[in-house]
């Protein structure tokens, strides 16, 4: 089976062929195909830009792979700012010996995910490093998008705002942990890795008054809520039983001693919306496949400033703590 060689990264013969056979073939478009040193594109007025590097291990997992994650992850960061993802860059660092067929699989996943976002990769780079100096493949993507719903910010949560999560939390993190620990999951759990823009677009088109919106990646639900409480100078009150959890994630967390609220999601986002719009927002989410498990989990209150309070099923209260000091393996 053919493997990536150091020559594939030299810029000459072999590398031109790799670029054509894998990247142009799957990800090509009018802008990228010009293969200039930099790409020319027209920008609307107000833009956002976000970058992220992806080092997930295992590279292929149930429900996705590093390629899908690299597109969805960056597009989601753009989308939760109320912006339509438009253009991306993609840079690959590949370890010598990586299977070319695997690289193609990754490129195909990227292509599918780009289509969901109606976004294009317009510039890219490939580097090959000697065996042992990288772990298979690392991908960096940067995305820009056009703001269609201005004003969304982690510091914009207001008193009485309603907090909605769009789906079950912690599924990506628990799946990755379980596969690393060699736990054989005889279950339906797969990573929730997905592009959020199609659902967010509906919320924006229906003119829901969104104050804050975040995808709950690293640090999970609790990290997002704590950040909002801090930056918006407000208290958040959350009902534990209302937080959607899959049975599988619950089970894995029990076995490995994790809190599902600390684990990453790659296809779930959290919204703070004006009270009057909450019901409608929930309905829009629930109608969409991605948001079918959406749930109102709490509200912003004029008490417990800068803290997130969790009410347990037993009616007791505690601080909804952020993850601390864990030896976190690479999950994205």
């Amino acid at each position: 089976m053919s493997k990536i060689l150091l020559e594939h990264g030299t810029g000459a013969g072999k590398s031109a062929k790799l670029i054509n056979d894998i990247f142009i073939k799957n990800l090509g478009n009018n802008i990228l195909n010009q293969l200039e040193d930099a790409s020319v594109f027209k920008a609307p007025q107000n833009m956002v830009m976000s970058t992220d590097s992806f080092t997930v291990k295992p590279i292929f997992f149930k429900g996705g792979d590093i390629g899908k994650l690299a597109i969805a992850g960056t597009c989601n960061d753009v989308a939760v700012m109320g912006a339509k993802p438009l253009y991306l860059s993609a840079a690959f660092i590949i370890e010598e010996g990586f299977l070319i067929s695997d690289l193609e699989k990754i490129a195909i996943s990227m292509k599918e995910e780009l289509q969901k976002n109606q976004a294009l990769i317009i510039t890219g780079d490939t580097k090959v490093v000697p065996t042992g100096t990288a772990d298979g493949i690392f991908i960096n993507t940067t995305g820009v998008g056009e703001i269609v719903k201005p004003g969304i910010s982690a510091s914009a949560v207001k008193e009485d705002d309603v907090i909605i999560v769009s789906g079950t939390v912690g599924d990506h993190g628990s799946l990755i942990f379980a596969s690393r620990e060699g736990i054989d999951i005889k279950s339906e759990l797969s990573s929730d890795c997905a592009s959020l823009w199609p659902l967010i677009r509906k919320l924006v088109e229906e003119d829901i008054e969104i104050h804050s919106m975040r995808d709950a990646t690293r640090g999970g639900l609790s990290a997002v809520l704590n950040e909002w409480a801090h930056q918006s100078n407000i208290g958040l009150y959350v009902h534990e039983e209302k937080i959607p959890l899959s049975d599988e994630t619950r089970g894995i967390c029990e076995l490995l001693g994790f809190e599902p609220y600390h684990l990453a999601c790659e296809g779930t986002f959290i919204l703070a919306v004006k009270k009057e719009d909450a019901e409608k927002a929930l309905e829009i989410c629930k109608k969409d496949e991605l948001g079918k498990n959406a749930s109102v989990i709490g509200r912003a209150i004029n008490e417990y400033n800068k803290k997130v309070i969790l009410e347990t099923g037993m009616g007791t209260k505690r601080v909804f703590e952020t993850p601390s000091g864990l030896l976190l393996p690479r999950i994205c």
Partner: protein
Amino acid sequence: MQKIKKISLKQIIEGFRKPEIVKAIADVLNDEAEKYSGELHIMEVCGGHTHIIAKYGLSQLMPKNIHFIHGPGCPVCIMPKERVDHAVILAEKEDTILVTLGDMMRVPGSKRSLQESRSHGADVRFVYSPLDTLKIAEENQNKKVIFFAIGFETTTPMTASLIQEVEKNNIKNILFHINHVTVPEPMEAVIQSKDSKIDAFIGPSHVSVIAGAKIYKPIVVTYKKPVVISGFEPVDIMQSTLMILKQFNEKRCKLEIEYSRGVSVEGNLKAQEMIKDCFDIAEKFRWRGIGDIPKSSLKLKEKYDYLNAEKIYDLPYEAIDDHKSCRCGDILMGKALPPECKVFGKACTPERPMGACMVSEEGACAAYYRYGRGLG
């Protein structure tokens, strides 16, 4: 043949966390507490229980006259700094791999933690099971592999089985540094200490699965303090508290087992045999936050001197105490709660612990910091 019905983990867990059940027990507890005129101070010995009490806010469900005192039962919290230093010193020796359990990595010694040592280039590895050390030793024949053993009665049999493997297979490159401690002795120590308020104990179930409920008999017989051995779910802790309260109302003083799913009076005799084969009771162990407690730890038997890192290397034993503003001692005696310590959450945090109770997430200060800071 009878069919075994499969049950999912979810069903098992939810049974013991069902809010309705916990609330129902809380109601009974409150009725029962009205019959009791005094105050009751119950020590949950084990850090695992402390964590669950804080995480589920169980104190909030308790009658006003019942108070939890958070005990010393967290194996890394009680490790004195000089022994943590031993781990660091050994890890930093040439051609040496130090192997231990994950919890040990972040515990600060007088100069640094193992985690910091590792970032300075020491080869420190953590394993889930002590037997994983065999593989590390096999793959690194030219290095000394030192197993730094920690834990209560629960983890001791696993260390013992590693020792037996090393002996049986004549493995030349594994050594041991033993820090296994026992549960009943610190319980006695806290009862005996001046102004101790403890009226009864909630005992840890996992220790009892191995050692048997019998180890608590002296507490009940000699010191007249009821002990109830409890599982680790909210329902267990609520139920155990109720059992203790009932003993007081009915003027009984007994050793009872709430966690009858796994604990017997005798415990696991085979595991106890293995422990006896490998270890003797050490004269004393210095517990961080408490001080010297006689006969509260284990040491390798003399026949294993050739495996004993403490005999082979020259290690310093001078006592190194925690900062003088640390009130862990008072907390363990039930004389103070974590927020009453003036450095709590300020100079002392889980990232930079100044005392034993902040070290692991099972310590009382760490549990308060994490789940209860500011809730009052």
